[in-house]
């Protein structure tokens, strides 16, 4: 099962995502602060990062770029409540495997995670 990092500035969102993915058997590490997530990435292996775009200080795409720099093999899913073509283009060019729009239902999330992990 995979090591998954989740970063969203809304605590409830992180908890909910963790609940869903833990049930699938994954080990989930949650963060609400971007710096903490990046620091985690410096020391620990991550199979998949699920990142929100609108964070407290940085953009989720910047966090994605930094994590990808540290761990090029890492897979990533961008989750956003404010989808735009520009952020979709940036996310994919920085190596995101999926760009999903919130709210996302449980089944869809599970399917996307499985699909990305199998890439």
């Amino acid at each position: 099962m995979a090591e998954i990092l989740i970063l969203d500035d809304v605590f409830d969102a992180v908890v909910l995502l963790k609940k869903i993915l833990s049930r699938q058997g994954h080990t989930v590490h949650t963060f609400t602060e971007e710096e903490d997530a990046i620091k985690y990435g410096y020391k620990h292996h991550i199979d998949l990062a699920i990142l929100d775009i609108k964070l407290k200080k940085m953009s989720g795409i910047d966090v994605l770029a930094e994590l990808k720099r540290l761990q090029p093999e890492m897979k990533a899913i961008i989750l956003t409540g404010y989808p735009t073509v520009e952020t979709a283009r940036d996310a994919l060019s920085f190596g995101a495997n999926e760009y999903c729009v919130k709210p996302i239902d449980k089944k869809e999330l599970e399917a996307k995670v499985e699909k990305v992990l199998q890439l």
Partner: protein
Amino acid sequence: MTKGKQLKKRVLIVDDEEDILILLKKVISRSCNCEVVLATSGLQALEIAESWQPDVLLADIKMPDLDGLELLKRITSLDSTITTIIMTGYGTIEMAVQALKDGAYDFHQKPFDNDKITGSIRRALERTHLLRENRQLQQQLGKPLFKTGFVGQSKPIIHTLELLSRLATSYATVLIRGESGTGKEVAARAIHSMSKRADRKMITVNCPALPEHILESELFGFVKGAFTGAETDKDGLFLEADGSTILLDEIADIPVSVQTKLLRVLQEKEIQPLGQTKTIKVDVRVLASTNQNLEEKMARGEFREDLFYRLNVMPVILPTLAEINEDIPLLAHHFLKEFTLEYEREELEFTPEAMQFLTQKSWKGNVRQLRNTIHRATLLCRDQFITPEDLMASTRFDHHSQTEPVTDCAFLRGDYKEAKEKTVQRFTTAYLTQALKKSGGNVSSAARQSGIDRQAFQRLMRRYQIISEDFRK
């Protein structure tokens, strides 16, 4: 690159609505300075693309015969350097994501802002240009063009190569001049390898590396008992180079006493080992190199005028990297290939932005600095693509690890305080770099090994802008 007449860039636009096509053609051909051809269906666009080879394709998604996303796939398999931009009137984010995943460069929703679409087209044209240039350079590298060790097609390089090959056939003494890192030793090797002496080994003497007395005995040899410690006869390097070529690297730094003896070799073609009365005839081609101003040294009495004129029979002045700026892409690919082979990372490539960074940066250390930067980037880059960030991270080392040793003469001139400061800076950065390299970027361990307090070590790192992350594996 091939100069000649620059062809106009080509943009192919495909949409089933003719009004939109006409409008787009007007806007794009006016503000992007390019040729525009229109197609009203996907299949027609594909046909035109095969014969006309556009740089950029701007395609609508909804078309009757072949939709934009399918067209994108077919175009990419036809020529992956064509950059495709997708536009649609019924866009959803899912559709945009799918198009981008399939390799579209950009995605626009109708009705669109003219500035946005022309900006996007311009960037796409630039992307295609860089991709094609990259591909062309890769192909050129495949050919065995570079026997001389010089890589480049700019005028100064071609001129230098012609000069070197002409000099190779003569026996004249050659003085190779040029800034640090321009390839003086490479030029010497080129002359030797193109000459009739190529089957013999060229002898290289780094003059400033040897102290005065040792330099003399190394060059000319000695006989048993010539001085204390001379227990057996020893042939000098000139005798070793008999029938071949000798390169006197950094000739400006040899002491005047040795200069006199050198002059004798050049004039009489004979050497006299230390402690021996007889002279020995030698047949040695002398090449000398320097990055210093010999005329100034002569004026100060530090370099013999007659030796200068003997050496300066055939001067070669190597161009700086700034003078051969147009060769940077070719050089960069050449070095990348060299290091990716060495480190078994053949998959590594430059991003177009990285190439742009390389061509725009000023290279005080010339080709050597460029080579070192690419060497480090090859080691630092963890991804398949070398980005400007990787290159910046590796140029950051440049003021730390200069190529010259701490005792480099050029460095020990000028104001005492300033020179001392620079020396200390160079020493400290070299020391810290070494310590951090050993500890794999672990500051505490590096400080412990160096016998310094961790805080003090970190203070020094901050002062000299050394980042521990650069050393982590």
